[in-house]
Each structure stands twice: as structure tokens, then as C-alpha cells.
């Protein structure tokens, strides 16, 4: 017969502690280990900046070429390989150029039926005295439309980067407008007063004579754009906005590009489907001649002028 133990006595035995631990009713650490409710760690800002500085210091040390030999060797090898690569590339390209057909020789492959037709029958087929205009705006009209769109999309990208909200613009307007230029510079205003009309008229002349003489939409548009920029620099944005603000800019740009697109589409579709196009070529040498070249030149000129001015205005104050 086994001896009945008292409760106190039993609680001291190993078996009791073992089974109690097994059933999980008693945590062996309670009363033995100091316990605290877990707190959310708060890192003071100083520690963070300290750590950042430390990590920066470590990084500086690691990449410090005076102390780290591996980095020094790597940098040297890197520079050497880069120089070697550049020299090799230059050598290969020079070798290639020396093997190309000699410049200006009549038997070059470039002088084939393509350029022959441009030069010989360009005048009859396009009606333009300026062969270059005739070539880029009639024979290769699609490429040139693409190029015009390159300008358009470049303005869009600059707008994404630099365009400010209207509210911000108004706040900055007062100080920004006269920030970089002297206020009411009489000499500049006097010169601009005389030059701007001349520049505009010259630009318009270049555009309208694009099919008769050297020039065309791209160069004429650049001239008009530079005239606009001169006007803004002399008289400020407020005066310019009386005739050229964002609204006018949008209308001008969209009309020009759409007109070009419509003329282009008409030209491509009639040509491809074998239909006549009803745009008369006129008499070569007259101002109203050469079919689609003149209107396209006007459109391209407008677009280029708008682009030039928009670049200046966006870089200058972040709005038109």
C-alpha cells in the first residue's frame, strides 16, 4: 500500500513539475525572470541621422581609394578598359571611313536613279524650285510629318517636367517675371521695338518662299520663334500674353499639326489608291505654286515657332 503524500509534499516532486510543464499550465520562467510588456521601439531622429552618417562614413571608407586597394585597382582597370575601348572604337570607325567610297566621285553608289530623278524631274513633279523642299515635303512627306511630331512630343515632355500649376504661377508671377532681366531696359526695348517686326516679316518671307528659295518651314519657324523670344525678353510676359498666351499657343499648334496631318493623309490616300489629287501644281516660280508644299510649309513654320517659344517660356517661368 502506497503512502498518501500531502499536497504540499507532492508539489515539490519532480513528477508534479514535469506534468505541470507538459500540460502547459505553468510557465517555468514566471517568477524567475524579470518580465516586461513589450514596448514599441521608438528611434529618435538623431539616432537615424547618426546611423545614416555612419553608413555614409563606412561607404566613403570602403570606396575611398586611398585606403581600399581593391577599389583603387578596379578604378584603374576601369579607366584603362574605357580608354582602350574608345581608342579601339575610333580605330575601327576610322578604318571603316577609309574603306567607304571616295567623297564626290561620280561613280559612287549614292549617285543612282533615286537622286537622278529628284534632280531631273523634281521640278515638274513637285513644282518647287527648291529641290530640297520638294524632296522632303512631297517625295518623303511621311518622314517629315514624323519629324514635325518629334518637335511636338519634345514640347510635351518639357511640359511634363517644367509646367507649373496656374496657382503657383500667379504667386510667382510678380517676382519671377523680372527676376533675371533688368527692369524696363530702355536699350533692349528700343532695339526690340525696331527689330521684332523685321524679324517676324523675315520669318514669314522665309516660310512663304520655302519652295522658291533656300529656307522653308523649319528655318522660317525658327526665325519667328527667336523674334518672339526677343519680344518676351524685352517687354515681359504680361505684354506678350496679350497676343500669345497658352490658349493661342494650343490653338495654333493643334491647327497647324492637324492641317498638316489632313493634307498629308489626303496626299497619301489619293496617291496609294491611284486617284488624282486635285491640288494644282501651278506655274513653277510663282508664289502660289508647287501644290502641297506651300501650305505644309506654313503649318511646319507655325509649329516650329510655337515650339521655340514654348521651350523658352517653360524653362524661364514654367508656363506660357
Amino acid at each position, binding site marked *: 500500500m502506497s503512502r498518501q503524500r500531502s499536497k504540499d509534499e507532492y508539489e515539490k516532486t519532480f513528477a508534479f513539475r514535469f506534468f505541470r510543464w507538459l500540460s502547459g499550465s505553468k510557465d517555468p520562467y514566471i517568477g524567475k525572470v524579470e518580465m516586461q510588456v513589450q514596448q514599441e521601439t521608438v528611434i529618435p531622429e538623431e539616432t537615424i541621422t547618426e546611423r545614416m552618417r555612419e553608413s555614409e562614413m563606412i561607404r566613403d571608407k570602403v570606396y575611398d581609394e586611398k585606403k581600399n586597394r581593391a577599389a583603387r585597382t578596379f578604378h584603374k582597370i576601369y579607366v584603362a578598359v574605357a580608354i582602350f575601348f574608345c581608342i579601339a572604337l575610333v580605330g575601327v570607325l576610322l578604318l*571603316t571611313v577609309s574603306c567607304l567610297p571616295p567623297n564626290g566621285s561620280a561613280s559612287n*553608289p549614292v549617285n543612282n536613279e533615286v537622286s537622278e530623278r*529628284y534632280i531631273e524631274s523634281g521640278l515638274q513633279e513637285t513644282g518647287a524650285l527648291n529641290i530640297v523642299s520638294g524632296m522632303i515635303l*512631297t517625295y518623303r512627306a511621311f518622314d517629315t510629318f514624323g519629324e514635325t*511630331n518629334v518637335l511636338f*512630343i519634345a514640347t510635351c515632355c518639357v511640359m511634363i517636367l517644367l*509646367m507649373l500649376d496656374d496657382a503657383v504661377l500667379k504667386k510667382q508671377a510678380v517676382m519671377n517675371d523680372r527676376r533675371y532681366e533688368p527692369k524696363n531696359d530702355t536699350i533692349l526695348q528700343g532695339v526690340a521695338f525696331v527689330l521684332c517686326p523685321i524679324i517676324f516679316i523675315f520669318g514669314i518671307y522665309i516660310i512663304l518662299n520655302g519652295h522658291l528659295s533656300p529656307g522653308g518651314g523649319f528655318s522660317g519657324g525658327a526665325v519667328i520663334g527667336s523674334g518672339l523670344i526677343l519680344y518676351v525678353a524685352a517687354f515681359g510676359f504680361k505684354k506678350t500674353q496679350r497676343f500669345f498666351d497658352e490658349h493661342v499657343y494650343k490653338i495654333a499648334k493643334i491647327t497647324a499639326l492637324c492641317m498638316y496631318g489632313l493634307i498629308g493623309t489626303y*496626299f*497619301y*490616300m489619293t496617291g496609294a489608291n491611284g486617284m488624282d489629287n486635285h491640288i494644282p501644281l501651278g506655274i513653277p516660280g510663282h508664289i502660289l505654286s508647287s501644290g502641297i508644299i506651300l501650305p505644309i510649309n506654313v503649318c511646319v513654320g507655325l509649329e516650329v515657332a510655337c515650339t521655340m517659344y514654348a521651350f523658352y517660356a517653360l524653362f524661364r517661368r514654367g508656363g506660357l
Partner: protein
Amino acid sequence: MEFVQNFPCISIMLCLFAGIISSGLRDRAAMLVNTGLLLINTVLSACTLLYTLSTGEAFVYVMGQFPAPWGNEIRAGVLEALMALFFCIIMLLSLFGGRHKLLQGVEKGKVYLYYVLMDLLLSSLLALVYTNDMFTAYVFVEINTISACGLIMIRQNGRTIEAAVRYMIMSLLGSGMLLLGLCMLYDLTGHLLMSNLKESVALIVAEGEYTIPLIVSIVLMSVGLCIKSALFPFHAWLPDAYGYSTVSSAAILSSLVSKGYIFLLIKIIYRVIGFDIYRSTRIIDILFVFGLMGMIFGSLSAIRENDIRRMIAFSSVAQIGYIYMGFGMGTEAGMTASVFHILSHAATKSLLFIAAVGLTDVSGRNRQFVELTGAGYRNRWAGVAFTVGSLSMVGVPLFSGFISKLLFSQAAVQNHAKMLPALIVLGISTILNAIYFMKTVIRIYTPVDETAYPSVSFKDMRLYAVVLVAFILLNVTLGISSQPVVDMIQQGLAMFA
């Protein structure tokens, strides 16, 4: 001349018009114009595809009054129409899927500019696909580059601006090399039209006079397009550009923009240089080696990444490596596999990007893996879609990735010299793919007891869920009924010659 033949020209011009008009519209109107444009273009491309399939031959469309070597031309065959159709569908789905993020990430008055860029990007992609003239291709490569930069930096924070600058420098380097090669080729032949160029190049090779400049110009054009499409050693710009831009941009950049350049390279190989001459220059061996290296190093970088978006971006490097490996085989089968992989990767990678954004949104917009634990339960649709995308990337049957891997291995088996390296690297790369994609899938389906992040249901994201389902369907369709697509690709490649 049938009326359908006007469709390629109409679709390119429509994109340009839509972009121009959208620049004067408000945000919402620009979005509607863009959606309408994409729908119309999908229909037009589908019609073109059906027409070319029914006639069985490619057609040339003269842009203007003047025929071939003097004026501009575009050309549409089965492969071109298929690509155009595919590009439109992927762009439509990517834009729908990322619309809510676009409104969050972009300044309010500038959303319309995003759609302007998108319209012009589509026009340039279509022009790159349809062009029959090298200079037209170059002009639209410019548009493509600038609009891609805009897409990266429209979500303005420091990282995207840095990424855009990097992208621009590398991409302009590529454009410059393309232009340089193009100028040399023009100097040697006097033509810019692809079919005339091919005749002249064949003549030069036969005469053997200008061999060095010809090879250098081929190399310059190939390397330029490799840089622009992020082949392995030139991929440094890629992870930031895809990782930090807004999600539609990332999806479109990885699945369409780089593919447009690759497609242009295919056109140059087939229609300008001629496949046999290109193979005999040995450039394909270099492409092969870099493709293999890209497959391994891209995957290794992806495994090391702790940010889900950057991981997917690095996976793109590996997938571009696959495509160039297919080029490097130098066989018809390898090229077919590459073209199929262009489609399959475009469908899968955009799905992954769109699904990943759903997962990060329910994890407090944290992109670290620790925070993503259990995200597959909080957003069930995105979880399933991400799993499907991962399985397809790894190459599990039923999904499109399996078919491309199968085609690559078949092509490798047919090429005796390159069989062993190609198969070994294909195997290694598949295992590496499985490591990082399955790691992510396991992570998003690891249950957590308590979470600080709320779950979302179908009602909160109807459009998003529909887009994900459409992507999954596209992927499974490519995986199950791949044979018609492969037939179309083979037919299209045959039309190139």
C-alpha cells in the same frame, strides 16, 4: 486596290491625330480619345490580319504619289498585322489595369499629357512594325525614345527623373549607333527602301568590294538596337526605369517598347541585310553569347532583389536574353521561337506588373517582400493573376511560357553546334526563374494571423479585376492554342524574304 489595304496607313495617322488633338483636351476627354483610338486600332489591325491571311501575301502601300525608291512606303504582311494587333491589345489592357495608379501618381492637370505620349507611342510602334523604309524607321524610333522618357518621368519623384535621364542617355546612344550604321549603309548603296537595300547589299557581298564598311554598319545597327532593347550588358538603365515609373508605363515599356526595337531588328535582318548574309557575318554568335549571359545574370540579379517591381524588371533582362538567344541560333526555327517569345513575354510581363501593383496596394504600398506576406489573400484576384504569370514565366504547361521554352528547345536541338550550351543555359535559367518566382508566390500565399492591411473585394476594383482576367485568358489562349499563332509567325517570316 482593296479598301482594307488602307488600314495600316489609317491606323498610324489616327494615332498621330489623336495625340495632336488630345494635347488640347482635358484629362478625362484625352483618356476617352485614347481608349477609342485603341479600340479602333485593334479592329483595324484585326481586319488587316484577316485580309493578309486570306490573300496569303504581303502588300505594299505607297505613301503619296511617288512609287518605291523615290517616295515613302509601308508594307503589311501576316507578321506585321499580328504584331500590330497584339500591341494594341496589350496597350489597351495595360492602360486599363494601371488607370487608378495613374491618377494617384501624376499631377492632376498633366494626365492628358500621359495620353498624348501614349497615342504617339502607339503611332511609333505601328510605324516601326509596318515600315518598309529605313529612314521612316529612324524617325519613329526618335518618337518612341522621347515618349518612353516621358512615360518614365511623368510620375515625378527623384528616382523616376534619374531613371529617365539614364534611359535617355543609353537610348540616345543606341539611336546614334543606328543612325550611324544607316548612314554608312546609305553611302554604300544609295537606297533607304528596304527591298532596294537588300538587292544592293547582295550585290556588294557578291562583288566583295566594301565588305568592311558593310559589316561595321550591320554591327552598329544591331548593337544600337540591342542597347535600346536592353540586351544583357546594356541593361543598367532598365531596373530603375521599370521599377519606379507608374505601373502602366512599366508594363508598356517592358512589353511593347523594347519589343518594337527587337521587331525592327528582325525586319533589318530579314528585309535589309538578308538572313543568310547576316548569319555569315558571325554577329549572331555574339548575340547568342550575350543572350545566354543575359538569361543567367538577369535571373541572378532578380533573385538578389528585395523589391518586387525591380525583381520583375530584372526578369525582363533574362527574357530579352531568351529572344536574342533565338536570333543567335541562326535558323528559321530559332527565329520563330523568338517571335513567339516576344508575344508570350509581352502578355506575361504586363500581367505580372499589373498584378504586382494590386499586391503592393494591399500591403500599404510597400514593395519589400516582408510586407507582401499574405497579400494573395487580401487581394485574391491579383494573387491568382500573379501566380498565373509566374507559372507562365517558369514555363509550366498550359501557359504561354511553356510553348516558347518548347520552341526554343526544339530550335536548339536542330542546331548541332549550339545545342549543348543553349539547352544547358535554358535549363539553368528555368530553375533560376522558378526560384525567384515561386519564392514570391509562396510569400504572397503565406497566411498571417493579424495584419494591419485591409483586404479588397471585387466591388472595389471591377475594371482592374476584369483586366486581370483578360490577361489570364490571353496567356492561357497563347499557351493552349499555340499552333495557329506559330503557323502565322512562320507564314509571316516566309513573307519577309
